[in-house]
């Protein structure tokens, strides 16, 4: 074999290895999700079967029907949980975005004393583990009587989301050239007008994706919600998921169905933002 064909053979082998590696990696990433969806559609008998049934013989939406049909029929109050999750996540996201926009703008456009210390300080408030924070909050909220209310959880999620929102929005405002706003100001805009008419529209998509990220954080949060909620008044979906394990037997199929209900909004939203999200996180990386 001459060198040329040897080289070609090696390249082809590498190409195949690359394809196989890529396929395996994607399989590992997708498999758990696919398995959950599949299990939610199969009868419990098949999930429990020994030896296992790999190819489902019948698919049905029974689990979803049971889940949404109320407490009496073996379901859990999913609709209530869903409503709570939605109200809490949306409200806290909107507030966090407003606060984050102000903060992010300050970091992107102004120089002030102790700027980087301030930034790190804000980030550090985010590092406090939810469960550690839940101890004093549980006590304070119990005293204030806002445990198991939407308000309490919204307040907590705003605080949870503000630091990261500031980070992201800071990045997006940095991507908007300073000259644009300055030009607008020379043309007679006030700084306020220049912000709303020039900088805000340009940073808009980025801010929207920061919002979706905040929404997902609230939507998925468990450690704090599990301690600060008690009943259908304010329980969110992640806490509701544990309703299935509270008994002696686990209703695998029901849990899978609820998992699917939880993941669909998150899935849709993430697909929308994926492009901007990465841009916002990395924009500061190279430029400093």
């Amino acid at each position, binding site marked *: 074999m001459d060198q040329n064909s040897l080289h070609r053979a090696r390249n082809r082998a590498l190409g195949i290895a690359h394809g196989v590696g890529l396929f395996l990696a994607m399989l590992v990433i997708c498999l758990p999700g696919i398995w959950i969806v599949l299990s939610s559609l199969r009868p419990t008998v098949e999930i429990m079967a020994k030896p*296992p049934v790999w190819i489902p013989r019948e698919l049905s939406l029974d689990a979803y029907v049971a889940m949404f049909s109320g407490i009496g029929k073996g379901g859990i109050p999913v609709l209530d949980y869903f409503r709570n999750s939605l109200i809490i996540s949306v409200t806290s996201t909107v507030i966090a975005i407003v606060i984050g926009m102000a903060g992010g703008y300050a970091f992107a456009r102004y120089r002030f004393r102790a700027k980087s210390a301030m930034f790190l300080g804000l980030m550090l408030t985010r590092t406090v583990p939810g469960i550690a924070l839940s101890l004093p909050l549980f006590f304070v909220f119990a005293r204030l009587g806002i445990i198991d209310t939407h308000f309490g959880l919204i307040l907590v999620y705003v605080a949870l989301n503000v630091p990261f929102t500031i980070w992201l929005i800071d990045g997006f405002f940095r991507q908007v050239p300073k000259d644009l706003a300055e030009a607008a100001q020379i043309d007679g805009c006030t700084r306020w007008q220049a912000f709303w008419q020039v900088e805000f529209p340009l940073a808009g998509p980025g801010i929207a994706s920061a919002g979706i990220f905040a929404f997902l954080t609230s939507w998925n949060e468990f450690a704090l919600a599990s301690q600060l909620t008690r009943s259908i008044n304010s329980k969110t979906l992640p806490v509701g998921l544990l309703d299935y394990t509270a008994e002696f037997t686990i209703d695998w199929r029901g849990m899978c169905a609820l998992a699917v209900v939880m993941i669909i909004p998150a899935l849709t939203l993430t697909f929308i933002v994926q492009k901007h999200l990465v841009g916002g996180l990395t924009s500061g990386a190279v430029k400093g």
Partner: protein
Amino acid sequence: MKGWRPSPPLLLLLPAVIVLAAVVVLPLLLSLYSSFTPFRLTKPETLWVFIGARNYVNLLTNGDFWIAFARTVVLLTVALNLEMLIGLGLALLVEKASRGQRILRTIMMFPMMFSPILVGFQFKFMFNDNIGLVNNALQALGLTDRAIPWLIDGNLAFIAILTAEIWSSTSVFAILILAGLLAMPREPVEAARVDGCTPWQTFRYVTWPFIMPFAFIAMTIRSLDVARAYDIVKIMTDGGPAGRTELVWTLVARTAYSDARMGLANAMAYFSILLSILFTVYFYRKLAAARTQIAAEW
């Protein structure tokens, strides 16, 4: 009246500072105080008894706590390193792909959307000794004929939790490192090739320094949220059986809410906060250093 006017950035940051002070800083001060008391939820008056550092002394001499603490540190160290390596590998694989990069990137983001509690549940399901996918597959392939007690044996449960942790967080690394690879200028790599570098040398001395800041961004983001492992462990094993998978966070939750010993739990929580802060500050400084280095070279 021309009085003192606060500067614009201060005014803009004020709402953020107020919210964070009210919801995070003040409660943490309260919990710092209560960590010096024998506070129990069932006996509110114990909040006013000051016992000095006795809770901390108790903790320092408590073997169970140190085991849980060490287990947490080991879990985080192993998980973060593996996530970084696998994420790097994944990013390189995807970057090399000639077709379908968009769809590959989308699939890569998939685990990010899963709430940690869902990740925990799905791996609890898959690692179930009786009906789990993993055991079923192993048995179907004839690799073993017994049910491996994944979530019951301490070491195996650690591996199961590690798997869940890595599955859920590798994509953060992969996505950000991929962003770095795509943003990288082509010339230095080509110049290195022309100068006769091997692929490994090109990667080590040209590509890696460039994507390093991106890796550290991922590390920083990830370390902000290390405590999400709590959610995963909570649903997979809840620290059990018999404390064999107990992490600092599950121990805090158990001490505070099951045993109602808030004071002690708060002292414990401070260790976990310190742990998170250490991780974050460490990576943040690395990030800052990497940024200035890149700015100087490119």
